[in-house]
Structure formats: C-alpha cells, structure tokens
C-alpha cells in the first residue's frame, strides 16, 4: 500500500537521524516521485540541515551570528578568573 504524506514526512525526518532501511528508502522514493508536497518538504529538510551545519561551523554570512562576548561580561569573567586563579595558587 502507498504511504501517506504524514508517514513519509516522518521517515524523511528520521532519515536525518538514522539510515533508513532499504524498504523505507524505496517507499519514500516512490512517494516523492509522485508527490510535490513531500518533495518540497524533503528539500526543505535538506536546506534546514545545510543551514544548521553552516551555523555550527561558523560559516554563516556576517551579521547572522551573535557578536562576541559583551565587554561587561568579559570584565566580570576576568575578575572571577583572577580571584580563583590566585586563590588556587595560595592553596597549592
């Protein structure tokens, strides 16, 4: 029996997490062949994956990622580190 779009969408999502079994791959492919909606869905999932890869690797275009550590926080962290660092030295 033909799979529904719902089932196919679940398998397409699953294919991003694990290798589909051969029969799953075949059924998805057969469905995509005749279904525009699911074909678009599948491409959208690939675009999402590609986009998050770029984010993870810091390759996204400028201005997309948050800017660096704010100055206030940098100062605060530096002071905390100094405190701990020196305290550590005393104890050792």
């Amino acid at each position, binding site marked *: 029996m033909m799979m529904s*779009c719902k089932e196919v969408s679940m398998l397409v999502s699953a294919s991003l997490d694990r290798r589909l079994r051969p029969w799953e791959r075949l059924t998805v492919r057969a469905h995509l062949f005749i279904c525009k909606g699911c074909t678009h*869905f599948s491409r959208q999932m690939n*675009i999402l994956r590609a986009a998050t890869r770029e984010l*993870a690797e810091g390759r996204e275009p400028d201005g997309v990622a948050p800017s*660096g*550590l704010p100055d206030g926080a940098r100062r605060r962290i530096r002071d905390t580190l100094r405190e701990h660092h020196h305290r550590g030295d005393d104890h050792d």
Partner: protein
Amino acid sequence: MAKATGEEQQGPGDPEQWLARYGDELFRYAMLQLRDTNLAEDMVQETLLAALQARERYSGRSSVKTWLIGILKHKVVDHVRKEVRESAREDIAGLSDQRAEADIDELFDARGHWIVPPQDWGDPERCLEQGRFWEALQACLDRLKVLQARIFTLKEISGLSNEEICKELEVTATNCWVLLYRARMGLRRCLEAGWRGDERRGVTE
C-alpha cells in the same frame, strides 16, 4: 603542582589568555545553543573556571580551543539536562505518544495528506545566500518551544546523536524522535510563513 609559570609552554596557558583569545568564540557557541545572552555569559565563565581546575589534565593532544569548546559542550548539555528536569517535566509528561500524534495530526487530513502542502523554496544554495532567510531562521528558532529548541540544537549544532540526547536528557527514544520531528515541522512552517511569505506576498492566496 603549582609551578605553573615554568610549565606554561607545554600547558594550556593562562585563563586570562583563554578569555582574551577564545572568549568570543565560546560565547558565540553558547549563544547558538542557548539563545540567551546572560545564560551564554554564565556558560563561558563556568567553562573557563572548569578549565582552570582541570588545567593539569590538559593533554595537549587537541588545541586549547578544541579543549575549551569540549568543556563548554558538556556544560551546555549539563545545563539543558537541569532545565529538562526542573522546568520541562510537564512538557515531557504531556508528551505521551497519543498527544504527540494529535499535534502532528493537525497538519494532515484524515487520509494523511498535507492540509497545506509545503512550497518550493527554490535552489538551496541561493536560499542560504539570502540574508532574509537567516533572519527568519533565527526568529523561528527563537519561537520554538524551549524543549524542542534545545533538542534541535543539541542535534543539529552540537552534533549529538539521538541516542546521546536520549541518554543525556533521560527521555525515551520516541519522545526524542518526536521532539525532533516537531521542531523540524515547526521550523519549516515558520520559515514558510515568514521568509517565503514575505517573498511571495500578494502572489499566494
């Protein structure tokens, strides 16, 4: 143990150096994961303090940056685990298989066909070149429910496997899978409404 100064050439160096050199990168990484400035700042501090404590165990096999990012990754997962335990229990409890099914069912008709079929987003490469796509993606990530967003970023940004996510967050494999599926469905719907909607204003409907 504390003759640190003499050993610094082989060792990972000084915590203030780490902050100066890698602070921005650590912060950006934490922001990608947690999408919350204060929280991301705290994570950077915790990471550097943990690194300071573990300094003697730095093996030199990886670069200092990789070592620090590794510590940060753990801190983020620890934080998300706490969040899931403390505040998201209800979400998880409400995530019975039936509830999850019902949520997903809304998108499809009784025969399992799309109620609103996904649209063509065009050429993937061109998509990723558009500033508006990225703006919409950030906005849509912010709009996801916390638990969905956390699991989605652990998976897609940190690169954890589903098994690792289930184990770390103590959720069942089904819940984990469903949360990822819902996050992806939510993101694509949001992107289609926001970014594609802008693009096609006046053309659709």
